[in-house]
């Protein structure tokens, strides 16, 4: 065999499987071999589902052979972030408190993937309960950036993004509450997309900030992302915020044509705090789209500085309520020594949660407490309304908003956690997209002088995924996918 199967995109591999050039077992084994070779160092996976994946691969092969599975991802090895429930497979949220939790049902998005014939090869590392931007708050230790293992992969879906970049899976699912798909995709040089809120069922996604959480694909290219999105998006009565969309077609937007597409660059995204190399790379990407016929101009979005404080109030408030269920009664970890029921709750939670999770539960409990509710929580919800309005106004004029995904490339390991506010500021371009429920995609657009990847973010209006897919696809045609050395070393 001359082709490294893991160097292919998910759709390319799916085609080879369909054409009988490759078997599903071969594809699964290729992913597992890549994990064995590199994951000791990178730590992308919390659980590798080796035995079950190989059995599943045989089953999928049979169903491809008898013609029941015909979709583009049939037989493709996929990784799932460890905050999505997978029946019988450990689902930990990278937390001690769920360290031994095996769900009795599977998340709807994962079921949709399985129904399409994908093979789940494992569960990926993340910041504990998705709270963090570096994947360093995981109880299982940090994931390393495959481009440079002295750097973080970003977070919170750092395991998924790094696994795709290191070719330990063909594609992966992540979740995005404030940038947790787009930012690690940017740091790891892969493509990641958060669709419009409500597009993908949250059933079985362990909640962090329910009004902001959304599952999405992480892959090598835009075609993979659109294909995965088409498979996992569905209206689901089990999720009360699931939206019945008029259409679930995303792949028809994969056309290299941006003639007349109106693209706005927020001037307030290009100011202080943005690394000059990132800025240059983003503006070059805008020029490339302009050269293809897009109409590009700068504008003032406004309110940018208010998104992060509003986000931390809302997300922490929702987290403090969502994480109340972890009490050591029905599942997960329970503290050993305690004196009565309340002491059991408190000791279990204090020993089971890490520092960042406790910090956010405390802040959330505080902003919701009597006397502070109006000053903080209601104020944040009003800010959210204004941010949404600012985007509405922008989308009256533009089809796509273009900017950086993150202000810098990946920081070094160990540099971020000591100053939480500084870490939070790194989410400045991604967070407002969650507050407004918009779709956003991060596509690789270059590397800085240290060789670390830079991500271009394209934001669309609600339900207008096709506009950002089109712009991302057209841009991608101007720039070949760049593989990291760890991935290349297996060729």
């Amino acid at each position: 065999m001359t082709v490294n199967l893991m160097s292919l995109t998910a759709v390319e591999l799916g085609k080879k499987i369909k054409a009988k050039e490759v078997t599903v077992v071969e594809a699964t084994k290729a992913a597992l071999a890549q994990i064995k070779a590199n994951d000791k160092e990178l730590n992308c996976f919390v659980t590798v589902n080796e035995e079950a994946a190989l059995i599943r691969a045989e089953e999928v092969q049979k169903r491809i052979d008898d013609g029941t599975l015909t979709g583009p991802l049939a037989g493709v090895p996929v990784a799932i972030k460890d905050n999505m429930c997978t029946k019988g497979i450990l689902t930990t949220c990278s937390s001690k408190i769920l360290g031994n939790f095996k769900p009795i049902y599977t998340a709807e998005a994962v079921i949709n993937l399985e129904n399409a014939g994908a093979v789940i090869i494992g569960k990926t590392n993340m910041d504990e309960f998705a709270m963090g931007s570096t994947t360093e708050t995981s109880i299982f230790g940090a994931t390393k950036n495959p481009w440079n293992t002295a750097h973080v992969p970003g977070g919170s879906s750092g395991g998924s993004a790094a696994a795709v970049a290191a070719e330990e899976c063909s594609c992966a699912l992540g979740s995005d509450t404030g940038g947790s798909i787009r930012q690690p995709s940017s740091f790891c040089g892969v493509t990641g997309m958060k669709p419009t809120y409500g597009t993908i069922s949250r059933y079985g996604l362990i909640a962090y900030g329910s009004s902001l959480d959304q599952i999405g694909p992480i892959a090598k290219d835009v075609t993979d992302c659109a294909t995965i999105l088409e498979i996992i998006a569905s209206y689901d009565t089990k999720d009360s915020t699931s939206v019945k969309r008029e259409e679930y077609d995303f792949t028809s937007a994969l056309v290299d044509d941006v003639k007349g597409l109106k693209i706005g660059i927020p001037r307030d995204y290009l100011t202080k705090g943005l690394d000059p190399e990132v800025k240059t790379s983003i503006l070059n990407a805008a020029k490339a789209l302009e050269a293809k016929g897009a109409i590009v101009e700068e504008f003032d979005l406004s309110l940018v500085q208010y998104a992060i404080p509003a986000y931390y109030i809302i997300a922490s408030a929702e987290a403090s309520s969502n994480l109340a269920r972890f009490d050591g009664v029905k599942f997960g970890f329970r503290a050993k020594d305690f004196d009565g029921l309340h002491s059991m709750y408190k000791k279990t939670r204090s020993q089971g949660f890490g520092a960042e999770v406790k910090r956010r539960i405390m802040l959330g409990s505080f902003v919701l407490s009597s006397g502070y509710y109006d000053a903080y929580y209601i104020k944040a919800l009003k800010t959210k309304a204004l941010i949404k309005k600012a985007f509405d106004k922008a989308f009256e004029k533009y089809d796509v908003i273009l900017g950086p995904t993150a202000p810098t490339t990946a920081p070094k390991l160990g540099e971020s956690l000591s100053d939480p506010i500084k870490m939070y500021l790194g989410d400045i371009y991604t967070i407002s997209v969650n507050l407004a429920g918009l779709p956003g995609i991060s596509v690789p657009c270059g590397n800085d002088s240290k060789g670390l990847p830079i991500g271009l973010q394209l934001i669309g209006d609600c339900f207008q995924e096709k506009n950002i897919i089109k712009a991302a696809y057209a841009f991608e045609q101007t720039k070949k996918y760049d593989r990291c050395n760890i991935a290349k070393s297996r060729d």
Partner: protein
Amino acid sequence: MANIITDETIEYVGILAKLDLSAQEKEQAKKDMANMLDYIDTLSALDTEGVEPMSHVFPVNNVFREDVVTNGDDRENIILNAPKVKDGSFMVPKTVQ
């Protein structure tokens, strides 16, 4: 404006959050929360007079269905995740005297 978080506040929030923080964690929490609130206070510069608070970006309606059970009895599997079990039930410390 610098926020100062008192011992009483941390104690009270700890009760709400059902967290039992060590003395060292409490000191850190006081500092972290004060810093965070100082930062969050940026919002006070924003005029939100007359703005309707937005909890969801789309109108959220109740999702109704017929009151029919569709999932089966999964008791045996559910209990497998329990930290402590007695007679097929979750076991917890005594709650009433």
